């Protein structure tokens, strides 16, 4: 396979994953605004922060308002991570690697873009927001479904999956990092309603508030939330789960190409850490420090993969 094709697949799936995550963050923000009397624009400031867009936003706007924040996250062309920009980029990459995709996967991606261009042609009215978010999530689901249902389990599949999970791990780690202070026992007033709302919003940002309830008996507790999103191997957006997948996908390439690269060692080391570590270790090390380290390692892994497999 061409190095450029591997690169295109990797980024196509990173962007689709990112678009979906941004939509989730907006959803969580919306939820927070709806369930609280007297929601403030400060809530959206937090959402922009979780999305890693706060700085870019403030370069364009003077202050954070809910409507500007939502518009910036959904539609802004100046924001390379807005949902629209992500889907443009995903579709561009998909066109570039069209020959590597099944017709179903390509069409699902193309229709995602066609749909979104129409939905996001104008500023979205507040009353339409839930259905727009729903469409984004559904469309992303259709791409995923077409991909899983029709693609051969070969190198193409594995490079695509690596893109998905590197992006997802990065997103989950960032969401946690932005809110890490909410999870620190020292500053938490356990059980207060403010905390509950904050915690719930973290879980909602990764569509995991129901799942959390099942696993931890619906008791919000910072250590459990951190455990769920970092170490729980069953939670499909946890760092542990992402790395299990990345390691499996990289192992496939190792077998197929009969070639072991630096990326393999990096990914293995990270996975071992997530498998063996306890949430107590993480908290002792410092949640923020742990996440910062993780994000750095995850980036480095991405770089090693693009070098090792000659993306450029």
């Amino acid at each position, binding site marked *: *396979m*061409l*190095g*450029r*094709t*591997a690169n295109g697949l990797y980024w196509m799936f990173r962007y689709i994953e990112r678009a979906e995550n941004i939509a989730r963050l907006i959803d969580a923000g919306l939820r927070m605004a709806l369930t609280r009397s007297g929601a403030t624009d400060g809530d959206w400031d937090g959402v922009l922060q979780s999305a890693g867009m706060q700085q870019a936003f403030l370069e364009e706007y003077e202050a954070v308002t809910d409507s500007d924040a939502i518009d910036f996250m959904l539609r802004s062309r100046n924001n390379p991570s807005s949902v629209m920009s992500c889907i443009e980029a995903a579709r*561009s990459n998909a*066109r*570039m690697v*069209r*020959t590597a995709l099944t*017709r179903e996967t*390509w*069409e699902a991606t*193309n*229709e995602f873009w*066609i749909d979104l261009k129409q939905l996001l042609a104008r500023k979205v009215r507040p009353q339409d927001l839930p259905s727009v978010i729903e469409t984004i999530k559904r469309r992303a689901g259709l791409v995923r479904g077409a991909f899983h249902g029709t693609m051969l389990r070969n*190198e193409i599949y594995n*490079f695509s999956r690596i893109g998905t999970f590197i992006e997802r791990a990065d997103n989950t780690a960032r969401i946690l990092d932005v809110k890490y202070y909410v999870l620190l026992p020292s500053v938490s007033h356990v059980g207060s309603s403010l905390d509950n709302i904050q915690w719930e919003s973290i879980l909602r940002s990764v569509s995991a508030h129901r799942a959390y309830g099942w696993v931890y008996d619906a008791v919000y507790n910072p250590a459990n939330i951190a455990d769920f999103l970092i170490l729980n191997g069953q939670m499909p957006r946890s760092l542990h789960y992402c790395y299990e997948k990345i390691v499996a996908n990289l192992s496939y*390439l190792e077998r197929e*190409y009969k*070639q072991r690269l630096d990326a393999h060692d990096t990914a293995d080391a990270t996975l071992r850490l997530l498998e063996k570590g306890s949430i107590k270790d993480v908290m002792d090390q410092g949640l923020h420090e742990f996440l910062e380290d993780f994000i750095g390692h995850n980036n480095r892994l991405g770089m090693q993969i693009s070098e090792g*497999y*000659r993306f450029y």
Partner: protein
Amino acid sequence: MLNAGADPRPPYRSYHEWYAAQDPANLIAKSRDAENIFRKTGITFNVYGHEDQSEKLIPFDIIPRIISAREWRKLAQGIEQRVIALNAFLDDIYHKQEIVKAGRVPRALIEKNPTFLPEMIGMRPPGGVYTHIVGTDIVRTGEDQFYVLEDNARTPSGVSYMLENRETMMQMFPELFFANKVRPVEDYPYQLRQSLEELAPPGCKGKPRVAVLTPGIYNSAYYEHSFLADQMGVELVEGSDLRVIDGKVCMRTTLGYQAIDVLYRRVDDDFLDPLTFRPDSALGIPGIMDVYRAGNITIANAPGTGICDDKAIYSYMPEIVEFYTGRKAILENVPTWRCSEEDSLKYVLEHIDELVVKEVHGSGGYGMLVGPTATKKERLDFAEKLKAKPANYIAQPTLSLSTVPILVKNGVAPRHVDLRPYVLVSKTVKIIPGGLTRVALKEGSLVVNSSQGGGTKDTWVLED
């Protein structure tokens, strides 16, 4: 579809019967379905000079254009003869230039032609084939009467539409294909791959590795490039993927560089090799021409084939065909005035309101004047351009082109069409029974180019 007596012409008989039984509203709805299929699939093209460079759909008309077996036989013979002559002509002008010595084509027209590549002099590609994939544009003026409008020996495009149009028709109207014996076009990608492999460099061991070279996703025909690569099951490469290593053209794969044997390039000559042609080209591969001259890669079509698309050369095609095949051309040329000749120029200027004037190097319907439909100002402006650089233009009469029906709001209406059959040349010449029918959607218009608002139809060649 109908002849003078309002009876359906023989090839349309069965279709007409079917059509008469259809609910018009239903057909309009089907027509919209077709558009959705195309949009969903991403069968689009980019129009240059368009505001947002956005992707456009080529309008698709759901009434097929039908050609009888007998008419096709004559066409196929004529096309084969012409394609053989084109390859012989290319071989000759890049070697001994017998045709010039014989005084049949002026030397200046060849050697001063910007599409003539001195770099190709003395170069004989594998198998002696220069133009592997040819599209011959043809118009029909009456029963068994065909004219060649132009030759596309450089990089004929549109074959993906031929295939997608058929695919769409079979999805929407399967019953029609039970009732009519339509010859298949679906194996074109397979045939293309085979014919490219057949002409791999002689030194190539094992199965030749084929790749399609595209300028990238912003090119107007990108959809077609990816479609063909996908259907053939070969890599779609860009210049940045390729590099010359140890005298071979190699592509960068996830496992390192791998040699390519045959390159079906959809990048123009000028951009192919920055070391030989345009130094600012980022689309090409530095050094590929050296590899080519050393006989280590097949480039399809060969560089320097564009000269056959030149409209001044076209005007000599009857002589060219006769010179190399020893027989009169089976397919006629449209009578052509070369404005470089003084008498012709005078005639063209006097009759500009009746003629179609074209740039000799133009393509895609750009830079031409359709006299009868142009405004007075357009004609005057064009006459000035013509006087300034007469050798840049040729002129042709507007033929009374036959029309075919298209679906409109209140039934069907006649429109002018042309036909581009596709030809593959390897050790043999293969003509795909079908082609791309382009249709001028505006009433009375003669311009069928998609960049100028033309549409397409499925083209049926019937079995006997």
